[in-house]
């Protein structure tokens, strides 16, 4: 579709409200469903995709409402650029992470439901009763000579200062992002030699190449449990220090080092690795970090029964983090709740 035809289509739809109604009644449920799905679905990636769907629907609504410029901007900027940015960050954070949908704040869901329904009711019913759409003036006159041109005229006349301010905002946002994203380098530039030296000297570093996709055991060592293809885990092997075969606390049954979840390379963890077994994780539930860890009777178990993350105190610095799985797909939210619980317990 060319620009012109789209514009024409927009005009037509306005005039023939049956067409518009058809579009609306088809797309509106989709938009709502996509939105609801976005809220409900567990995987963040799915969320993003559902949002994109929603954005597309809305873009179409823009177009049918004689705002083709906005409709395209919506598709290009929103559905395109911004959502890509979202996905990007999602990847950085961990693409596999799915949210636990178990609520940890008491009454949050109930409140959200009540207030949400109330809010919707308050918004919807008055609108439904108050606004008489028949009196819509339509934008035919305003869009004379083209929607883009009309918007441009307005933008550079009435709204020029706002426009400038907004552009300044964009610049500031760009700079701000750089500032936020910047990490001060500690020490001098690290050369290749140094990198290699570190790879072998620093404890917990992966020396061998990481396994390829589909390989679920990263180590062939006995203390590292593999993740079974079905998502379950291999049974623990007794006698290995730091791995209790049976523990009362489901949350601390497995140590991070023993998880077969794929570690991102920058994860230093793996305290369960022999030779570094004096790491915090190996101390088990009674160890120093355990003083926070076990204190979580309210901790939600994973619905799927998958490995929960070990309770580990939030490490202030990168390298000290004992949670090997933090960078992995699953442990993110579990860790999160663990941390939340830990934080709470601490405060009490």
């Amino acid at each position, binding site marked *: 579709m060319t620009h012109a035809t789209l514009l024409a289509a927009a005009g037509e739809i306005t005039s023939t409200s049956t067409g518009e109604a058809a579009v609306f009644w088809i797309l509106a449920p989709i938009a709502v469903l996509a939105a609801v799905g976005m809220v409900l679905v567990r995987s963040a990636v799915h969320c993003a995709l559902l949002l994109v769907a929603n954005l597309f629907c809305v873009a179409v609504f823009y177009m049918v409402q004689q705002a083709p410029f906005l409709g395209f901007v919506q598709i290009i900027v929103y559905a395109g650029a911004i959502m890509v940015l979202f996905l990007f960050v999602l990847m950085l954070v961990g693409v596999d992470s799915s949210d636990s949908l178990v609520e940890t704040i008491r009454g949050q869901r109930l409140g*959200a439901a009540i207030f949400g329904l109330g*809010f919707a009711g308050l918004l919807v019913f008055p609108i439904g009763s108050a606004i008489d759409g028949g009196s819509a003036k339509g934008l035919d006159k305003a869009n004379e000579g083209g929607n883009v041109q009309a918007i441009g005229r307005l933008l550079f006349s009435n709204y020029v200062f706002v426009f400038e301010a907004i552009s300044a905002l964009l610049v500031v946002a760009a700079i701000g992002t750089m500032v936020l994203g910047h990490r001060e380098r500690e020490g001098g530039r690290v050369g290749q030699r140094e990198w290699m030296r570190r790879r072998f000297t620093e404890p917990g570093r992966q020396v061998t190449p990481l396994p390829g996709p589909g390989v679920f055991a990263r180590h062939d060592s006995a203390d590292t449990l593999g993740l079974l293809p079905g998502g379950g885990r291999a049974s623990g092997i007794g006698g290995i220090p730091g791995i209790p075969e049976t523990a009362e606390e489901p949350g601390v049954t497995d140590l991070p080092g023993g998880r077969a979840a794929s570690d991102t390379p920058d994860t230093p963890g793996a305290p369960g690795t022999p030779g570094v077994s004096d790491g915090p994780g190996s101390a088990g539930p009674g160890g120093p970090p355990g003083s926070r860890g076990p204190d979580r009777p309210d901790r939600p178990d994973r619905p799927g029964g998958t490995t929960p993350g070990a309770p580990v105190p939030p490490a202030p610095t990168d390298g000290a983090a004992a949670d090997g799985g933090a960078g992995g797909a699953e442990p993110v939210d579990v860790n999160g709740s663990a941390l939340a619980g830990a934080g709470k317990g601490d405060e009490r």
Partner: protein
Amino acid sequence: MRVDPVLLAATEPGGQPIHYAAASGVFSLSWLVIVLPLAGAAVLLLGGRRTDRVGHIIGTLAAAASFVLGLVLFATLLGRDGDDRALSQHLYSWIPVNGFQVDVGLLVDQLSIVFVLLITGVGTLIHIYSIGYMAHDPNRRKFFAYMNLFLASMLLLVLGNNFLSLYAGWELVGLSSYLLIKFWEDRPAAATAANKAFYMNRVGDVGLALAIMFMFATVGSTSYADVFGAAAAGVIGYGTLTAIALLLLLGACGKSGQFPLQAWLPDAMEGPTPISALIHAATMVTAGVYLIVRAGPIFDGTQAARTVVVIIGAATILIGCVIGCAYDDIKKVLAYSTVSQIGYMFLAVGLGPAGYALGIMHLVAHGFFKAGLFLGAGSVIHGMDDDQDLRHYGGLWRYMPITWVTFGLGYLAIIGFPGLSGFFTKDRIIETAFDKGGTSGYLLGSIALLGAGITAFYMTRLFLMTFHGKPRWSSEGPAAKHPHESPVSMTGPMVVLAVGSVFAGGLFVLGHSLQDWLEPVAGTGVEGVHTFSPVVLTLLTLVVTAGGFAGAYLRYQMRPVESVARPDTEVSLVTFAARHDLFANTFNETVAMRPGQYLTRFLVWLDLVGIDGLVRGSAAAIGGLSGRMRRLQTGFVRSYALSMLGGAVLVVGALLLVRAG
């Protein structure tokens, strides 16, 4: 501001205006009478230890100078016409606030000059006496300063030409009295007694203050001229007049130690003896009598108040007499004697114009003999190393002859020995009481008569136990006593006062000299029908007195006196009660002091726990509430978001409601 205070006038009942002539000539210096001792006090107090060595001289000179000036005023007054002897001097405007105009002004008239002479005269004598009596006290300068202050205050009291000046003097003599009672401050008893005196005086002062307020509210002025003018003109309602009179009486009772405010006076004997003589016998305590006489026009208008005066006087006579019989402390006996003698004066002035002059006469005579008695007692105490217990005396006449003689004269005067001052003045009071007529006249007269008898009894007891009988002290051993006659500076005044005690009464009564002198102020009593002929009554009085004397003589001279009083458990109920001031202190403590203490304690508790507790409680409640509400701040962004949404719902809902409504 008042421009010309020179001519103050009041209307007499007959409509005859009497003028308070403007003070001129020597009278324009009458303020010096007050200022001289005041200056003495100021110099001594401000001069500090520098004036230690000359303190007594300055003090005495100031008093003497005041006395001399008083004499000059008196002499000049004598030279004037009888109706022209009231002179008013306006000094300056003291409290001018619109309708409330109070000046500091002086009124020199027949009444006040009598008091001036009494105060400064006796005062000077006692100053002289104190030079010797206080010779060894390190704070003698302060003592004289306070005495001077007292003289100034007392003179202000009697010389002021309005009630507020009188009130000022009234409270200031209370202050001087307080200062002097607690002169030996390190004795807790003295400090307590001083406080008690001040408190009870303040109760009386409330009455006086309220009376003044009543006057202002009624007459719009507090000056004698205006108030008496209105009172005499009969424009003030009877009720108001009675109220004013009763309030004045309350003040008088407080100051003069009359029932029901008599309890402080005996305690005040904790002060040095000269003070007891000057303030608590001769001058200050008689201020109540002065007040009633001065406010005669008010009392004249209200029979009810006058009846109360008479009742109080009569009651006090008996109370003083009865308790006086029981005490063994020489000064306390004298103190209760004072109480009862002032009761006589109250009785007299309560009888109306007929008694005013009699009251004053008895007052002056009492000033002489009671001061003399106290000084004598002081001399005895001085000689007995500050022992005040009668039971430790005995046979002292041999060792202190001058004291014996002067004390004896005073003693004879007070019991009304024929020819001595008490005989004349007291006799007349009894006579007038009977003359009042009716049952009440008989009753009052009988009480006065009975009082005379009891007075004779306890004074004889005092005298005999002190100077006669076997000595109940020893000149050896650890408690050795060496009684000795006092120095001339002490005996001199005693002699003078003894002479006064002997002759004052006769001087005043015979030929009605004082009565005539006071007549313009006090009015004349109508010579009513005598209930008894004066001769009969005199004889009757003498018989009763002799009876009292005989009783005491038989009991305390013919029989040996124990040197230790019998314990309370072995004495009769009457004696027990008398020894305990007829339970006046017990009464005061039960009715006023203890409830007051409990109330105070309760209020302290209430303030701390109740009112402040309310405040602190609310603070704590807020603190606790915020401690709970703090928990809402969970740190979870989503909770905050939820509350934001809630707020939004509320706002939108409210908007819709408002719009819909």
